[in-house]
């Protein structure tokens, strides 16, 4: 009787462990799939170019207009990378 109970307990524990392992493995696969499929955000929307005075955009060193015209990224007031 005692032997039967021990076998039953052992069998039940084994079954539960198997089920738990399968569930854990499945959860792990789901988690990795989620990670691999992570949709990453595009880089930031650029901050607005600044205000312009009463002289308008032409005829002086208008920084916002210069920024909009610049051919290289580092002169165009675009988002930075460090720390983001």
């Amino acid at each position: 009787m005692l032997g039967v109970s021990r076998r039953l307990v052992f069998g039940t524990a084994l079954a539960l462990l198997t089920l738990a392992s399968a569930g854990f493995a499945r959860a792990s696969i789901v988690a990795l799939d989620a990670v691999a499929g992570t949709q990453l955000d595009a880089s930031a929307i650029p901050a607005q170019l600044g205000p312009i005075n009463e002289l308008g955009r032409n005829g002086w060193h208008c920084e916002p207009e210069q920024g909009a015209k610049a051919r290289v990224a580092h002169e165009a007031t675009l988002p930075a990378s460090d720390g983001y």
Partner: protein
Amino acid sequence: MRFSVTCGFVFAATVATAAPLGLSAQPYAGVTPIPRTTDAAALHALATHREIIERIKIGFEAEGAQNWSQAVDEFTRVVALDPPEPQGSTAYYDLGFAHAERDEFAAAASAYEKAIALDAGFLAARANLVSVYLLAGNVPAARAAADAFVAAAPDSARALYERGITALHAGDDATALRDFRALSSADPSYAVAHYDIALAEQQLGRFDDAERELRAAIVLSPHYTRAQIALGAVLLHEGKKDEARLAFDGALAGTDDPALRNLAESLRDAIAR
């Protein structure tokens, strides 16, 4: 006689003072003559012009002091006066700027559109228009504005960046790839362009190209946390778990931003499980 002598003295003094000045370069324009009139319409026009100039100055200073409501009030008054160019497009531009700073994106977009209607070559207004449409979540309008910006300034880094970002938001990965590659060609040291190229490559299923671009971004900018996280995700997709874990560790080491740290940590822990 006394009058003549006085005038002569003044004239001589003026010539003596002006002569040395005439020898040096004088970069400033001469003094604008003060308009003299008794005509009511002309006086009204002069007063209006003066009000336009003074209100733009006050509004500009208010924007410098981040007093957005005063700036909106001043520029709203200026545009109601129907100013000539360049003050008209300038006032609408500054009005758009102040609205955007108050998160009033629809009003900002409307003001920028009016600035561009008055001055089609106003690139700063075109640039800001794309930004406010994106901030408002209006991707189709941002796309149209970005296309017009690139058409007006095909070599502008900002135009290429803004259309590239808009294309990524719209799911047009081919356009994003083209614009960010052009941006990167003009300025290969700009790490963000490599990051966005990688996102487009990833969307197109070219993970090895995405990995190469992300590694280039990280070489240029070692503390570029988003690029580290993106690299980890790409490596994981390629089945390179150990390298992915290193990338997420690199992301954690490179930032104090709680949101980015939390993201990198949860992704790394998902691998460990």
